């Protein structure tokens, strides 16, 4: 790194420029990732907050299983409960509706979850009230309604008391409100449903596929089950595509810069080889230099993302976590290095004989 460091200092301007480009792309990627994460969490954190190892949905005659269309009848519940290897089955009802705080003129959209008290602990299960007259509000629901414990709210024409306010859980961009199964069945019927739960949260280790096939259901791990949320796939798909394109752009930009830079240095590289520099040491120098530029650019970019993200968190759905900062940063660094590696051809192929020529 002897020459690499001095080149960095000597050609400061050029390296600051490419570092800034890297920082800018990192900023874009980080911001998009944070936004994607935020949107995703507003879409699916309620589903991810359900108990159990897998979620069982009704398998429609045609098309993909869907949270909004699934209905689990009592025969299916019984079959799953009876299947060998199943430890626990929690029937969950999910329906979207509107709720308003007592006396307020306007209503807010909410996701009404119904599940029995005493289900295995999870974010949503912990909201669940023990009686039919109470509701548990997720933090987002409480904030949207402006409700506190003890307030009365109305959902689909019935009044409930706010029994507890818990963690954050969202479903399809609406905050989660948890009810007892009977209260939920009432809400579902008033909204046009038949009161049957829509999902089973199953814990244990049964022969998932066999039981699912015999009951006309699908049993997906909680994380993959979110593809059954129509809005989620399309939303995350397009944002994910943008992020992937930005990754590609950054690899290209860094690769192009270091290719041109290394070609400019081809004469120096030939001289160093003629003086006895091993190809290994020259490659280390070149990659080390690229890594310094990348880490500096990415570091600045991620710092700005973290600052902006914490500011934007109140206004936008923005998720600031290692998954939306460190992971994109690591991918940027890896892709950038891969881009810089394209330039290594010039280093490994430089012919020290050319250093002897008089027309450098």
């Amino acid at each position: 790194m002897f020459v690499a460091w001095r080149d960095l200092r000597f050609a400061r301007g050029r390296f600051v420029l490419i570092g800034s480009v890297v920082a800018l792309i990192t900023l874009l990627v980080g911001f998009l990732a944070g936004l994607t994460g935020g949107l995703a969490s507003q879409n699916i954190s309620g589903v991810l907050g359900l108990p159990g190892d897998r979620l069982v949905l009704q398998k429609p005659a045609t098309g993909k299983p869907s949270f909004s269309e699934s209905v689990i009848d009592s025969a299916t519940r019984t079959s799953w409960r009876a299947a060998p290897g199943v430890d626990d089955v929690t029937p969950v009802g999910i329906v979207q509706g509107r709720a308003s705080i007592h006396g307020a003129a306007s209503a807010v959209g909410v996701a009404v979850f119904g599940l029995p008290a005493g289900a295995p602990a999870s974010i949503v299960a912990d909201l669940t009230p023990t009686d039919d007259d109470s509701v548990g509000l997720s933090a987002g629901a409480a904030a949207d309604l402006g409700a506190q414990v003890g307030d009365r709210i109305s959902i689909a024409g019935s009044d409930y008391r706010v029994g507890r306010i818990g963690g954050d859980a969202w479903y399809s961009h609406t905050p989660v409100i948890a009810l007892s199964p009977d209260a939920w069945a009432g809400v579902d019927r008033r909204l046009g449903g038949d009161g049957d739960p829509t999902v089973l949260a199953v814990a244990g280790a049964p022969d998932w596929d066999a039981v699912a096939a015999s009951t006309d259901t699908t049993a997906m791990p909680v994380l993959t089950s979110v593809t059954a949320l129509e809005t989620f796939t399309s939303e995350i798909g397009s944002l994910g595509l943008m992020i992937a394109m930005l990754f590609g752009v950054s690899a290209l930009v860094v690769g192009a810069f270091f290719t041109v830079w290394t070609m400019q240095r081809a004469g120096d590289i030939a001289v160093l080889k003629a003086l006895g520099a091993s190809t290994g040491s020259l490659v280390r120098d070149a990659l080390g230099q690229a890594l310094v530029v990348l880490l500096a650019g990415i570091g600045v970019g991620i710092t700005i993302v973290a600052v902006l993200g914490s500011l934007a968190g109140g206004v936008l759905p923005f998720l600031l976590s290692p998954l939306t900062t460190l992971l994109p940063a690591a991918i940027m660094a890896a892709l950038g290095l891969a881009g810089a590696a394209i330039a290594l051809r010039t280093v490994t192929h430089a012919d020290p004989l050319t250093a002897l020529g008089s027309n450098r």
Partner: protein
Amino acid sequence: MITLDDITLTFPDGDARITAVDHVSLTAPNGVVTGITGPSGSGKSSILAVAATLIRPDSGRVWIGDTDAAALSRDDATALRRDSIGIVFQQSNLLPSLTAREQLLVMAELGGRSRRSRAAVRLRADDLLDAVGLSGHRDKRPAQLSGGQRQRVAIARALVNDPGVLLVDEPTSALDQERGGEIMDLLARLTRERQTATLLITHDLVHRDALDELITVVDGRASTAAHRVEA
């Protein structure tokens, strides 16, 4: 000491091959400047390139100490250049981002197990810059040095790793006559002081006093009788 033993080197030229070096044998002893002269295109640089292990000859041997440098692999030749051969190019070939002193220090950073400690290289670099009369210019970059000063830095750089062999290709071609004479005298002095086997190419003979031996190359063939130049 470096000995070229029956070296032949050809280059592809269309369908045929052109013979740049034709059965050349020569010996450059330690402490002596052996000059190689001859018309343009006669094969002088080619001889130097073979001696420097920058190109492998078609046949013949290059003895540096008791190593046949012509038979070495690419990597071993690189290591040999690093440790045992100093090269001064026609152009100074300094690195633009390094100061005069750093041009010398970089010689300890070229890879391989460095033979000497960095502190020792620093001392040696200062000593060499002193020897070429540039102690006052150690922190200047090539762009801030004159052509003659650059060539002095290049000579000092070639000597940092204490090579047994010093190969010099037309060191004065970019300099005026006076500056050229100084460089030649410097090379002659350092050759004696450091007992290097110096092989020096020059096509004009204004500075022949600085040469101890002179070999003339014509059409790739060295004149058999290397004659003593009276100083």
